[in-house]
């Protein structure tokens, strides 16, 4: 099993979600996060004064999938979260040791 964690632009969340459902992804965790990468921050102007915004709002998604679909999921996220501009985000893939569905006690593949 793999845990795929991606930080993407907030405006691309719906596209990414739409692309993952056909791949058999049945669950996803979404968080509103802030951070910086190569894009750095930006400035906002209030009453003519510039404020440095160091941390840019992003969306973090976490999806646990079986090994055989992981590659496709990564590709789908990459294609659907891409705007070609700086700040599109990153995808990280981790190995998952165990998964348990709390209600039934099912494990691993059955739990996803």
């Amino acid at each position, binding site marked *: 099993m793999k845990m795929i964690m991606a930080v993407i632009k907030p405006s691309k969340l719906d596209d990414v979600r739409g692309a993952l459902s056909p791949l058999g992804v049945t669950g996803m965790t979404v968080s509103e996060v802030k951070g910086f990468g190569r894009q750095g921050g930006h400035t906002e*102007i*209030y*009453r*003519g*004064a510039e404020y440095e*915004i160091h941390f840019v709002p992003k969306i973090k998604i976490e999806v646990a999938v079986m090994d055989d679909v992981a590659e496709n999921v990564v590709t789908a996220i990459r294609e659907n979260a891409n705007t070609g501009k700086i700040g599109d985000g990153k995808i990280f893939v981790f190995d998952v040791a165990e998964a348990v569905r709390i209600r039934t006690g099912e494990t691993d593949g059955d739990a996803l």
Partner: protein
Amino acid sequence: MEKRLPKFFSFISVTAILLSLPDVALAQGAAKFSGADTAWVLTATALVLFMTLPALALFYAGLVRSRNVLSVLMHCFVICCVASVVWLAVGYSLAFSDGGAANQYIGGLSKAFLSGVGIDTLSGTIPEIVFFMFQMTFAIIKPALIVGAYPERISFLGMLLFSVFWLLLVYVPVTHWIWGGGWLAEMGVMDFAGGLVVHLTAGVSALVVAVMIGSRRGFPREINPPHNPGYVMIGAAMLWVGWFGFNGGSALGANGSAGMAIAVTHISAAVASLSWMMIEWLKHGKPSLVGFVTGTIAGLATITPASGFVGPIGAVILGIAAAPICYGMVHVIKQRFQIDDSLDVFAVHGVGGLTGTIMVAFLALPSFGGLGLAEGVTAGQQLWVQFVGAAATAAWAIFASVVIVWIIRLVTPMRVSEEDETEGLDITSHGERGYN
């Protein structure tokens, strides 16, 4: 139109006499009770209280960071309550009663705790208790305006002490000088609803406090932007409505003077908002909400001293002028001088009030559609009087504010610790969080 102003002036002097000698004046039949005037001033009293609670509180609360939102709301609310008590105890008496030999500079204590003021006591055409309440709402909003200078770092006790002493040592005497029959009133200073009394004194005092207690940590580069511009807009919109009572009520009567004051107030606010919007649009490419409503407040502060003297054309001119002047001053104070007058009390209120105070000397002329100066006074002479009035009130406000802060510091720190500041005043001073 020209005849109305001298009438207004005589009304003011009659009021001043009445305040000092109500029984004598009544015996002479100089003033008659007016139900209409009373009804309007009662209404205006509620509108002006509304300017502090909740309008100014929301306006300021939206501009600070989310960890300090409750502290700013708390400041405005507690100042309302404590100023009311001070006003009842001695404030009103010192501002508006006869000070005897010292009357040029300060009133007396004969009306402390409203001594001798009953439901039949008149002040002009309205009951004195109504005049007292109307003026109390002004005494509330002035120290509350200064909240914008020191948020996010001031200690609660320091804020309370400063507000009380500022009210007694700055607001009360200056009010007496200009509205209570003191020396500036005798000179003929024109300050209809408080450009000098309210906005300039609060503005320069704000600057003094901001300098003396120091900047917020990280100012100016590492400060987060306003946490809730929506609050700022709601507060500004309520202030606009309340300002009708502030300026219109200052006519102290239900008449054309009150109507004109409201009309020019509204026009100045509208024009200044658009003027500020255009500046941002041209300069930064986007018209922002926070900037737009800051323009509204600049226009309202600027028209305040002029609101009973200018006509609609004067209001348009004041509105256009308000935005670039205040916009420029925000930059000068914060960037050039690096003074953390956090919510721009001086740049917007102080400078706006000063601009209106100076420009009224010309804009009150009939050629600008104004209601005219006092008989035999030229614009040049009036300008000089306005200048002296502004310089004197500013100088006194600065001096007294320095002394007040200096003395308070001997008793208690004016600032919270660095750790508390970083954590936010909501949780460290009040034990609550704005957003759970």
